[in-house]
């Protein structure tokens, strides 16, 4: 019986001109956005590869110079785009794509793509993810609002139930019919996306298919919440018009109001530090140390004393290596601790904000889905942090190699020492090991759990409203 109801609902939906129009529009938007995003991502990858190659050439051909000067010359590393960014670009337009690595300083990634765009960017992006998060739920509302309330209004509900159909069967059948309708619309689009993904330049990236499967599961759950919720509302309201008003208001709250509201409220409780204060505190700690007890100069004096004692010498000129090089290694180590502390705190704060917004997903499922979607697509802050961390590790390796060269090869007091291409070639090319799906899961967890809670709650609501189904409104 459930299947029969589902079949009737399926056929009805496709006969509805409004749905066909809406479905066609959504499908066109999905395909167009997918193709354009793919083109953009591929272009970004090519540009990045070209820039990386040129920058490597710059580095290798910088000429002979003091190895510490090479540290100041520095090098740029560029961020790669996740292949699944074609589906959900997430925060990518709003984080820097380039990090300048140099001695003494940990720089933040610079050049946000959104800064190089028009103000239209702020209206949001046309991506497959946005279409599924905002537009497809509207289609669901359109299909579902009259499913039971409309039948009640026109009196057919009484007839159907008088045939011996149980309310639960009817409600489940209607939901199943809607789900099948959506599946018939979205599965071909999904297959097309999978085809594009398989042909993309980085199809072998680790765990990409696992990530894609997890994404599909999250979106299926989200749409299931909308189907169950909409049919449930339609079963519980007096007439189709009331059902529509309620569903459209909920949609607007979820898709339009919630993202901005949640982000503003969360930032009220967990503010981001100000740039000037962040810089000031970090500079202060570099000079005075994290505990604030000893000035940098005092600690370096102490370091000199202990080094001399260790080697049994009375002056740094007697040491068997260039002491200046060792001091630079030591001060990089000390500064590194300060950077780790401050950047660690800043990044922890941003992740705490993201996670709080994802938990707000308990009130609006789109927030939960968005967090999970960006995490699995590899375009959330956890993934950006991974890049920033890797870039900083690369910086420290590179500065260490240069300072060690100075320490071991320059004679004490010799300021004319220069190193050349042999040393520059020792520095490996920057490579980012992608995060595994397991790591992505860690960042997606709040969103996924909130989404799961919604799924359970909406199914419970559906059963509950089926149990209370009345042929006439009270």
């Amino acid at each position, binding site marked *: 019986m459930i299947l029969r109801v589902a079949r009737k609902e399926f056929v009805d939906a496709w006969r509805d001109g*409004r749905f066909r129009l*809406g479905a066609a529009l959504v499908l066109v938007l999905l395909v167009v*956005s997918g193709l354009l995003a793919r083109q*953009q991502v591929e272009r970004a990858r090519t*540009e990045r590869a*070209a*820039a*990386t190659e*040129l*920058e490597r050439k*710059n580095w290798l051909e910088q*000429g002979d110079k003091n190895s510490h000067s090479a540290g100041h010359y520095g090098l*740029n590393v560029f961020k790669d785009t996740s292949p699944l960014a074609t589906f959900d670009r*997430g*925060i990518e*337009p*709003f984080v820097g794509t*380039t990090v300048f690595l140099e001695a003494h300083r940990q720089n933040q990634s*610079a*050049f946000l793509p*959104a*800064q*190089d*765009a*028009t*103000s*239209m*960017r*702020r*209206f*949001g*992006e*046309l991506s497959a993810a946005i279409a599924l998060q905002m*537009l497809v739920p*509207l289609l669901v509302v*359109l299909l579902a*609002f009259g499913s039971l309330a409309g039948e009640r209004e026109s009196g057919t509900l009484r007839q159907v139930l008088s045939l011996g159909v149980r309310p639960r069967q009817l409600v489940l059948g209607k939901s199943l019919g809607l789900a099948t309708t959506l599946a018939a619309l979205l599965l071909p689009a999904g297959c097309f996306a999978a085809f594009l993904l398989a042909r993309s330049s980085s199809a072998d990236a680790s765990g990409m298919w696992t990530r894609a499967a997890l994404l599909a599961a999250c979106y299926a759950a989200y749409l299931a919440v909308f189907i169950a919720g909409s049919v449930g509302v339609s079963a519980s309201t007096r007439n*189709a018009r009331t059902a*529509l008003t309620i569903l*459209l*208001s909920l949609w*607007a709250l979820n898709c*339009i*109001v919630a*993202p*901005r509201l*949640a*982000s*503003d409220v969360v*930032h009220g409780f967990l503010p*981001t*530090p*100000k740039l000037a204060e*962040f810089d000031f505190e970090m500079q202060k700690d570099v000079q005075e140390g994290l505990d604030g007890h000893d000035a940098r100069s005092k600690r370096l004096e102490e370091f000199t004393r202990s080094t001399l004692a260790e080697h049994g010498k009375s002056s740094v000129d007697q040491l068997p290596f260039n002491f200046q090089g060792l001091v630079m290694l030591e001060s990089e180590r000390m500064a590194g601790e300060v950077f780790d502390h401050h950047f660690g705190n800043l990044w922890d704060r*941003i992740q705490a*904000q*993201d996670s709080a*917004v994802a938990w707000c997903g308990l009130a609006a499922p789109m927030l939960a889905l968005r967090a999970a979607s*960006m995490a699995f697509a590899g375009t959330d*802050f956890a993934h950006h942090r991974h890049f920033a961390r890797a870039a900083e590790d690369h910086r420290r390796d590179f500065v260490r190699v240069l300072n060690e060269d100075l320490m071991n090869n320059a004679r004490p007091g010799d300021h004319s020492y220069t190193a050349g291409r042999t040393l520059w070639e020792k520095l490996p090319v920057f490579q980012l090991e992608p995060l595994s799906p397991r790591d992505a899961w860690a960042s997606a967890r709040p969103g996924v759990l909130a989404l799961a809670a919604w799924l359970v709650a909406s199914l419970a609501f559906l059963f509950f409203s089926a149990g209370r189904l009345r042929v006439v409104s009270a």
Partner: protein
Amino acid sequence: MKVLGLELRLFLAERATWLLLVLFAGTLAYGIANGARVGRAAEDNATTIEKGSFQWHTQVREALERQALDPRQVAGRPSVALLPPAPVPALAVGQSDLLPAHESISLWRLAKPAEARSELENPARLLAGRFDLAFVLVWLLPLFLLAAAYDLCAGDREAGTLRMVLAQGVSPWRWLATRALARGTPVLALALVATLVAGALAEQSGVGTRIALAAAVVLAYGLFWLAVAALVNAFARSAAAAATAAGAVWVGFVLVLPTLLNVVVESLHPSPSRAELVAESRAAAANAEKRGTELVSSFYRDHPELAPPGMQADMTSRMLAVQDEVGRAMDPVQQRFQDAILRQQRVVDLWRFASPAIAAHEALTDLAGTGYWRHRAFQDQVATFKDELHGYYSPKFHKRAPLTKADIATFPRFKFVEEEPSTWASRVATSAFGIALLATLAALLAASRLSARVLTA
């Protein structure tokens, strides 16, 4: 007029109406408070920066009054270019959370791509956007208006009461227009009051024109959506159909068209690659560095008046010559970059009337002083200031002339010059006019569709 009063009383007699109005008033107040908070933070930042800059200039002036200085002692410290706080920040946060409002300009980094640092911000927040007044006015005002006015006659037609109404001899078009106005007026009035409040919160004086224009934009935008409600009712057979159609129009204009325009713009005029720009500028720098001595001698051949005694360049003048060369090499690349973005914005300006939401949003951010054009003007003026800074120090370095008391008067200081009021006013007035035109078109279309026959068919 009598009908209008009657309809208004009817509308206000519903409990749902009051719920709607209270909700709308709440979102407006929250939006204003949020925007004002962002504005205050910008004000604080600006004050701190200005104070630091002022102190430094005082120090330099006092030192120069006592004795001449080596320019290197002064030039090493970066000057700060500051975009003053927006005139009406409570109206719209706009691009101010994304684009930096100050830039540190060092004589030794003039040729490097500007590494503009904006405030630390969670990128997800930039993605979501702020819950500011412009958001409430552009996104939510239409929803509240449509909620109030989506059922002007479709419900009556469904119930059959429409015949009775029209039997009274009223003109269907006038009746519908009156009804739309009666239902829209309370919502629109709240929106206009909120706009005035945002203006009253402005710390700067002389924002009257901005607020008047903002009110005009809001009014035109509101009337457009009421015309949409009338249009939908001219076609729809039932209240539910009217609600669906109104919702679809909203989604089309506010959600889909702006993102489509964004895509079109970026496909038509793709931004050149920042990564390549950075790498290219480093290659140019390395190239110039290698030719340093040659560059500086050829410079002195071209500018003998600037050559130091004995034509012997020191480290500083060599660095300057190298930097000039990098600047020359990178200028076309930088220019290509700026031009692409300018072309993108021109397309947006041209096509903003495709959706009144785009036109209204652009106009409101423009009026708030947080839109594209004011930031663009800032970037352009920063570029000019860099030239000024270079022009001030370069001859002194080459001739090894000290800074003296006489140099105080011409000491370079960045001062942002606001756009001419006529420039932004004409941009915004065009937007308001365009929206009003679209509203008229929608209303005319509705009127032509409405006749007693159609209404009751």
